[in-house]
């Protein structure tokens, strides 16, 4: 069995671990680690009967995810303190938002950098406040810097000098060069306040962002994790108003494809209108599940295609050519 499909089967039906052989277990953990889903897997199967060696891995992964959650929430808290003097909403995105909102199906999820969304006209104040509170630029490269500021949907990444944690400050959820322009003002206006004053996106916007992140704005690397987020969010929030909201942001196609992929991979329950399978869906499905029993990416040709595709989506062709030329001259090659 394709080990990525094995992982998907265990995530959707944890009791299917019964009868796994030792090689199955080894492939399962290797792929789960490769896809950053080890903590999620551990939470899904905890408490079920399994070999002792697997149980120990479950305990280790749960403890590891819990520490990651503490560190992520603390980073959000320190950002909140640093930005307390700025009169603008600060919206947590992605993993930190799921943890802060206590979305239980996403327990165990790996949380990467801190991502926050702020109004575009507040971004200079936010930048200054973060720099004053100990964050520093990660890369001082003038081309990258100008590129980020002009075209990307975020500031160049900042890292905290004592805690070694990165923060990405966004003013919308897709680059300004992309053909699709989500309504950033609506994302902010409909965001929901948490107890401590930080905010999270509305339910539908959280789903829209997850779909944008999965397809429109990515090369599908780590896609199984992102799709699991969508599966869980759909289970938690349902489909009410989702089609309209996604269409409003120009993300209708991405949202529908995300749902179809989630239904296929994780058995997400979806109304009939959301189901189906188009001509490109098999390609996406293959890319999402391209892992060998060591957890390594496979299907290199498919990957390169997706690398070019993700850039094409972000930029008009002439700009893409200029960007790739500058990058390649400086020695960058797609891995």
């Amino acid at each position, binding site marked *: 069995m394709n080990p990525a499909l094995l992982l998907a089967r265990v995530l959707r039906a944890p009791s299917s671990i019964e009868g796994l052989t030792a090689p199955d277990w080894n492939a399962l953990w290797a792929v789960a680690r490769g896809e950053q889903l080890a903590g999620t897997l551990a939470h899904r199967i905890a408490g079920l009967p399994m070999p002792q060696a697997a149980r120990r891995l479950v305990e280790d992964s749960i403890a590891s995810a819990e*520490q990651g959650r*503490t*560190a992520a929430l*603390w980073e959000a*808290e*320190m950002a909140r*303190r640093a930005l307390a003097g700025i009169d603008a909403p600060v919206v947590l995105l992605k993993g930190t938002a799921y943890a802060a909102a206590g979305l239980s199906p996403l327990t165990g999820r790996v949380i990467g950098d801190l991502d926050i969304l702020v109004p575009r006209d507040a971004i200079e104040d936010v930048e200054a406040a973060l720099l004053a509170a*100990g964050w520093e630029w990660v890369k001082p490269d003038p081309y990258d810097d100008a590129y980020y500021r002009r075209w990307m949907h975020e500031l160049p990444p900042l890292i905290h000098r*004592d*805690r070694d944690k990165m923060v990405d400050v966004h003013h919308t959820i897709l680059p300004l060069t992309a053909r699709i322009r989500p309504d950033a003002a609506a994302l902010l206006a409909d965001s929901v306040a948490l107890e401590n004053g930080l905010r999270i996106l509305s339910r539908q916007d959280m789903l829209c962002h997850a779909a944008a992140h999965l397809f429109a704005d990515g090369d599908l690397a780590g896609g199984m994790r992102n799709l699991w987020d969508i599966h869980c969010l759909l289970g938690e929030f349902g489909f009410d108003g989702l089609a309209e909201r996604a269409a409003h942001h120009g993300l209708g196609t991405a949202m529908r494809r995300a749902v179809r992929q989630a239904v296929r991979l994780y058995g997400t329950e979806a109304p009939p209108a959301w189901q189906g399978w188009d001509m490109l869906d098999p390609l996406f499905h293959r890319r999402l599940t391209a892992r060998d029993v060591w957890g390594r990416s496979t299907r290199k040709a498919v990957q390169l295609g997706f690398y070019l595709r993700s850039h094409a989506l972000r930029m008009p062709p002439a700009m893409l050519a200029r960007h790739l030329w500058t990058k390649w001259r400086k020695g960058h090659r797609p891995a």
Partner: protein
Amino acid sequence: MFYRAADPATLRIVPLDALTLVYHRASGITHIVDAPVPEILDILGEGPRDVAGLLAVLSDRFDLADPDSAALAVRLDELVAAGLVERTCAI
């Protein structure tokens, strides 16, 4: 400007020889601290204070050879940067 300490329930404080270990559960960070940090955490744990108020309590409880509010402000800045103390506008 007032200073509020982390909730004492979130701190594990272990005095060792000359230095003191502080494990902060909310951040997961371990701090190794020198005097007067444990004393400051202790006093601010009773409630927020400003620099003058804190200095008064410290002078009251300890035999301060150097009751210098500038030095105390530096200690508080360090505590703020470490996340063990938060600045607040009002009590």
